């Protein structure tokens, strides 16, 4: 496992942890723990998006999916920086799978915000930026010898 791979996975773990807290915040709002969302001057948009029909996916609140997704990415990235598990090809493959799935879901949610609801929630934008950054960090390794999809880490 190269130093570059470890650095990327460390960055992924930190980003996933930040994303986990954003999702947790939105999930707690969904559960009624917060009366409103701290969203600056765009508070209306945040609550409008979070209270829309698109705030649920397959019967589960979208922030719940976010918690599960960021939690999974965090767990795998943390395992992926350990000498014992980091070199295992499945670590890279799982991260790649999650990154692609996460990016696809982010594109879907952002499209809904822009073209269906016509309202943008800042927390969603933050999460979208983090998800995209995680995808780029994962994709960075694809073309390299230490790239995760091929499982060539030594």
């Amino acid at each position: 496992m190269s130093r570059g791979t470890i650095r990327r996975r460390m960055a992924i773990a930190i980003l996933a942890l930040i994303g986990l807290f954003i999702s947790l915040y939105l999930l707690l709002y969904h559960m009624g723990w917060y009366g409103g969302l701290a969203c600056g001057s765009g508070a209306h948009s945040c609550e409008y998006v979070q209270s829309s029909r698109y705030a649920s996916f397959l019967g589960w609140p979208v922030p719940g999916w976010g918690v599960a997704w960021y939690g999974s990415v965090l767990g795998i990235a943390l395992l992926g920086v350990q000498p014992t598990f980091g070199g295992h090809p499945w670590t890279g493959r799982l991260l790649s799978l999650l990154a692609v799935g996460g990016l696809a879901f982010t594109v879907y949610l952002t499209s809904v915000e822009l073209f269906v609801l016509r309202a943008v929630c800042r927390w969603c934008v933050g999460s979208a930026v983090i998800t995209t950054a995680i995808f780029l960090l994962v994709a960075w390794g694809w073309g390299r010898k230490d790239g995760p999809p091929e499982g060539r880490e030594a």
Partner: protein
Amino acid sequence: MANKSRKRGGRKSSGGPGRTFYIVLALVVAAGVVALFALRGGGGEQPVSQPMSVAALNQPADSSAGIVEGSADAPVTIAEFGDYTCPHCAEFTRVTGRALRQNYVETGKVKWIFYDFPLNQSTNAIPAALAARCAGEQGRYWPMHDLLYANQLQWVRSNDPQGRFEDYAGQAGVGDMDRWKQCYESQNYVPRIMASRAYGDQLGVNATPTIFLNGREVPLRQADYGSLERLIQQATPGGSSTGSP
């Protein structure tokens, strides 16, 4: 070499991440936990739903579950799906809805139907809808409706909003407060509120406020006074403007 490697990459020579990485993770965790509590507003009043039976919450859709104002013969019908805890709805009522009702409903040109669409059952949305419907029993629905939206920030996070609702009911002109309290506490209108919500679901309502004008959904961007006034005039044979908010 190991020291050099640790300085550059923050990892041990064994290949794992260094202490710095775990310190950063711990700092992010600490900041995240503090932020979650800070965003809650220092442990103030938080909305808690009133206990309601599942049977009362699961209702079939009912198009007659809305509150109607205006002439049955009006050429234009506006149906509004709203949630009393929704900031957009409060803004819509304050800036657009109230003025449109004054200028078009009271002059017999528009029939306005308000459908409760409580988005989240764990907020004060249902209790507020209940408070308005109980005021409606004494003919004071719309003043209560407007007061709830006008004072939304005062009760939306309250753990027990009944006291404030009682004040608004008094201000709205509800005469028999004992009857209002009995109505509110009995929760008898919860099935009607949820039937209204189910009707919105059936129509594909995604968010609040959602406005329908003669059965056609008005895009959110057109839900301002000027646009709605134009749509009303287009739908009214020989209609003309009667004022602005």
